[in-house]
């Protein structure tokens, strides 16, 4: 069964990036945008979808006077990502046999 939320290419990439970090580590929105080479609007929309699914946590705060948005993967999100990657690998393995 395909997880429609995480299967979308950009959302899968977002989860790939966040999954690299430690469980309690956050990633700045601007840094994530630079890693994925996308726009503010596109990234923001996909983060919202992932957040509604409970796959990521979004934290908006002020660092000094500057607003800062940071995100991190939840346990549920990490599990969904691992399952989806395993599912994709399974498809490749089944064709190789």
């Amino acid at each position, binding site marked *: 069964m395909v997880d429609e939320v995480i299967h979308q*290419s950009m959302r899968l990439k977002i989860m790939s990036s966040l999954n690299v970090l430690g469980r309690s580590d956050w990633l700045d929105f601007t840094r994530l945008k630079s890693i994925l080479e996308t726009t503010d609007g596109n990234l923001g929309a996909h983060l919202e979808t992932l957040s509604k699914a409970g796959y990521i946590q979004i934290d908006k705060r002020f660092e000094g006077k500057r607003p800062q948005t940071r995100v991190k993967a939840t346990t549920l999100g990490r599990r969904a990502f691992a399952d989806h990657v395993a599912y994709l690998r399974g498809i490749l393995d089944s064709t190789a046999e």
Partner: protein
Amino acid sequence: MSIDPQEADALLKGVEGVEKRTRELLVYARAGDYMILWGVLWVIGYGGEFWAWHYAHDIWLSLDAIGIVGTCLIIWRTTRCIEPGRRRFIFVRPLISILVLMGFGILWVWLANFGGREQSAFWPTLCGALLFCFGLWAGRTLSIAAALVVALTMAGYFWSGPWFGLWLAVTCGGALILGGLWLRR
């Protein structure tokens, strides 16, 4: 919804690419801070060595102490979101690396009885060699910056004549600062 093998392959390659890029950017952002710190210290140290060589020993002792404290502060700042147990682990490794590097350098400067010019060239080439190796795992930009530092040091050693200290301050210190700023951009 079904996924064909080509699509699965493309998605997995995308995942691997993003994971690699994320690891590189995280390392670059941290390495950039260290490079700027040590670049500034090299500018002051080699500049001080050039203009006030009588005090070179004291200057470098003070700068090394500042460098170690500064490195600890950078590690503390970059790891403050990490849970305390893992943080202690992350904190200790770079610090031990710096102390081992310094100990190794001091030992060989003492054993080999280097002249002033050789000693000035030794540290940037030692740091450059280690940074180059680290870059092979962490990201090739670090290796390129390290190779540049070593090449500039050797060029200065052979061709800068009495301006060697100033050469190291401007080119090697400057290369570290510019490289660090570029990595943090």
